[in-house]
């Protein structure tokens, strides 16, 4: 289990992470959502030990992040594959550096790029989606228990994004604990078992349905003729609907509504 307890981090006096706590268990996907500059990447970099926390503790299966790097596959933010290598070479060399014996490193590298449907050509010639797949294959090549992905789908087209989602769901099914950050609400909604809304501190957390139930005391009634929207308290919905003289649709609030409300109230 990845356990983060009361972590603080600041740069030049500006607090970037404030008293952040969370856990990631094997076989689940935990997603951090938040605005640019909200501290997601700083938090991830502490989890995989590239940055040290000012206060608080982070442990991975009881070890410090630096000692536990072997059990984590990491794709940092805005990283591209190392140039001058072919796709299989990239995954192979990362396996060798991670300590996988050379003969097994080649077979694993070739197996992974075949499984992820990536052409074995120079990484510079690969599409954005395939470059991300190479990074994920490189992160997976030593079969880590946890995968940490910092905005893995930013800038990808919808098809590539969907392909990556399917890969992540499959990995979760195989028992990997996955921690990822994203800007995309639909990504969190599709993938996450638990969501954390982060803007320097954790503003809200829980399973998607829990978030909805926490903040969805109001339902949205939409006038299908005019598009006009009414936010109605749950207990008043029957009475409100009995008064309606138009075609309507009643909706629960989306994650986007929740996100807007939480981030909006945070200033």
């Amino acid at each position, binding site marked *: 289990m990845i356990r983060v307890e009361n972590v603080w981090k600041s740069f030049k006096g500006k607090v970037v992470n404030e008293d952040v706590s969370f856990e990631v268990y094997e076989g689940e996907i935990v997603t951090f959502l938040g605005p640019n500059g909200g501290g997601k990447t700083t938090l991830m*970099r502490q989890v*995989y030990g*590239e*940055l*040290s926390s000012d206060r608080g503790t982070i442990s991975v299966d009881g070890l410090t992040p*630096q000692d536990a*790097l*072997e059990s*984590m596959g*990491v794709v*940092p*933010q*805005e*990283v*591209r594959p*190392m*140039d*001058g*290598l072919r796709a299989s*070479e990239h995954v192979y*060399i*990362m396996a*060798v*550096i*991670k*300590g996988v014996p050379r003969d097994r490193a080649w077979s694993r590298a070739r197996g992974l790029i075949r499984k992820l449907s990536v052409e074995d050509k120079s990484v510079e010639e690969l599409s954005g989606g395939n470059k991300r797949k190479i*990074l994920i294959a*490189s*992160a997976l090549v030593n079969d880590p228990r946890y995968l940490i992905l910092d905005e893995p789908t930013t800038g990808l087209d919808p098809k590539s994004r969907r392909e990556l989602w399917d890969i992540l769901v499959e990995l979760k099914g195989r028992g990997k604990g996955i921690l990822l950050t994203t800007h995309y609400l639909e990504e969190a909604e599709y993938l996450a078992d638990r969501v954390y809304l982060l803007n320097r501190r954790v503003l809200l957390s829980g399973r998607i349905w829990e978030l909805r139930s926490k903040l969805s005391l109001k339902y949205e009634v939409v006038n299908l003729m005019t598009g006009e929207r009414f936010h109605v308290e749950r207990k008043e919905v029957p009475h409100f609907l009995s008064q309606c003289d138009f075609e309507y649709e009643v909706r629960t609030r989306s994650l986007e509504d929740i996100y807007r409300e939480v981030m909006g109230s945070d200033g």
Partner: protein
Amino acid sequence: MVNIRKFVGLLELVARQSRAYLATNVFYGVMFPIAFILSFETSIRSAQVLAGTLTLYIFMNVFIGTAQSTAFLKYSGEMSLLYVTKTPRWMIVLSFVVYQLASTLPMAVGLVFLGETLVPIKVSWLPLLVTYLVGAMYAFLLGTALGLVTSLRTANQLSQVLGWTFSFFAPTFISLQSLPPFLRFLSLLEPTTPLAQELVNNLEGRTSLNFMLAMLAYLVVSMVLYRLAENRVT
């Protein structure tokens, strides 16, 4: 044992990535000795000119290459990508200095052999090797520190300016004694000064404790600067 395996893996990575730069290395490897021979056709034949040329190999090549490589590794995220394989930062960086040394050492040795046929020198090989290693090491550490704390664009520009400044606005191709006294003191603030002067000594069969101590002082300063730079990025 694990660290040795990682280091060998890193060297393999660098070697594979460097295939694209093979032509550049061959070009510089051929160009400098040719330029050296040409310069001896028109200028004074002296150990100092040979020492100046070696300084370009030892300091400028390593300093500029390391600063730009480090900044690129950081910019592209490769530093992070390699760090998360549980490879210590110093090892990532060391794999690059070994590559820099490995690619420049044969050229430098070739140049000294070439120089022996053109210049009346008597090479002290062991002190020359020590001078080479100490100079290359602080060139590497200074380059790494620069690359860590600056952006890619700044590192590219600044490493060129500093590299050429340290190579040509320092007594590398001329002796320290040929400078006016006040400039001699100022020139000692440049890391290439003791390096070039000690190279002259080694090429003429001597060693100078003062210049070697000055180089060791630069090595210590560069280590401190490197540690400060590393702390800044964590």
